[in-house]
């Protein structure tokens, strides 16, 4: 699904990613964890071209997104993204947020888009909020709408950039539950998260980033019980 080869990213003189190579197979769920500043969010944002790679190549479904000729908008239609701070469109209702891209990008009719939108709202448990504006929602509700908005484009994979980090503790579960149900549908997912319990429970694979490199790439069982590197042991000792 996604192939990354020699990916480096620098912001001015600050090199955030250092020659990362990995693959994310179809249907797999990869949790990207690591200390803050390790480059995990930047790595995720490179996967849909929100950050331009300084060096290296990324292929999504065989198409190279790092090529200057790449049609990024087209590629992004197939990659949903959920942000830490939701980024719902405040001047649109919940339903309009969800139907905006299907109508504007895919050219769906309003009726079709709204039908799908209502179904998705039902899935994330927010049917009654269809006509509310984002400012009236709680953080957990906003994030569930953001997930529905991304799913409305019927993406082949989903990127989650710390989806629960901005939430009050009591709202984390409702968002994680929605993500779990999404995993059961076989969706390919890359999740940057600080929720170790969640990563352990749902991920097929853990990528542990530190200092801009993948320090460990292992199954959750192996990673959480017997991490090989000192840095990962250190990190786990602090967070668990």
């Amino acid at each position, binding site marked *: 699904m996604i192939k990354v080869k020699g990916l480096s990213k620098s912001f001015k003189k600050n090199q955030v990613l250092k020659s990362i190579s990995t693959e994310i197979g179809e249907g797999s769920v990869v949790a990207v964890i690591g200390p803050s500043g390790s480059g995990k969010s930047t790595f995720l944002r490179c996967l*849909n071209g*929100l950050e331009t790679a300084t060096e290296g190549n990324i292929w999504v479904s065989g198409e190279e997104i790092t090529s200057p000729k790449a049609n*990024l*908008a*087209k*590629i*992004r*239609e197939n*990659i*949903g*993204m959920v*942000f830490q*701070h939701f*980024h*719902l*469109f*405040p*001047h*649109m209702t919940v339903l309009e947020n969800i139907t*905006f*891209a299907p109508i*504007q*990008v895919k050219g769906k009719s309003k009726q079709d888009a709204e039908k799908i939108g209502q179904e998705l709202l039902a899935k994330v448990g927010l049917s009654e909020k269809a006509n509310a*504006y*984002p*400012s*009236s929602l709680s953080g957990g509700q906003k994030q569930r709408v*953001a997930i529905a*908005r*991304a799913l409305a*484009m019927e993406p082949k994979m989903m990127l989650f950039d710390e989806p629960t980090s901005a939430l009050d503790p009591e709202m984390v579960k409702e968002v994680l539950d929605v993500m779990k149900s999404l995993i059961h549908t076989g969706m390919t997912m890359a999740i940057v998260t600080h929720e170790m319990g969640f990563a352990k429970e749902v991920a097929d694979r853990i990528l542990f980033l530190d200092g801009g490199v993948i320090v460990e790439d292992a199954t959750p069982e192996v990673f959480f019980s017997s991490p090989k590197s000192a840095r990962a042991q250190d990190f786990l000792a602090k967070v668990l």
Partner: protein
Amino acid sequence: MGFDFSRLVPSIPFILEGIWFTLTVVVGGAALGLLIGMILSFMRISKNRVLDGIAAGYTSIFRGTPLIVQLVLLYYVLIDLTGIDLGLYWSTILALGLNSGAYMAEIIRAGILAVDKGQSEAAMALGVPYSKIMGKIIMPQALKNILPAIINELTALTKESAIVNIIGAQDIMRRSMLVGMRNFRFIEPMLLAAAIYYVLVMIISSIGKLVERRLAKSDQS
């Protein structure tokens, strides 16, 4: 001394007729200014250095010189140099528009930059093309935020339009001056002019507040 409005009364209709001129040049100038301002602000935020430079230069010159000088240059010098005579009416609209465009550009640019970067990122991640991100996501939010500043600019333009009397345009100010000169009494026609400008500004501000309240509906929690 004291006031004597009796001699003003016959001239009131003459002065009031100036409202039409003032209003249409202000509305025309503001519309042109908004258009120029939008184009300039898009040039300013574009990654193209040349476009950015041209827009920055334009803004700097038109904000850095008096409107009255721009007006005179546009009206008299344009005719001298090129023979193009736009007439009082269109010269006034053009001068107000060109000048106001520079101010609107800065207002709009600030409004666009004030919209959270996450908004365009979220739209980009959905595959929305740039033109639609600007038109349907960024600009609606930017315009809502800058509406008070735009209204402010409109009222300023209404008041500043009084200087077009310098080229002989028959606006409220010019007509009041003429009446004053004819009667050798300026106090009453000027008071009337002040009252008319004040009412116009109040009307514009209240329309602005009304629109603002309309747009605020998505803020209700």
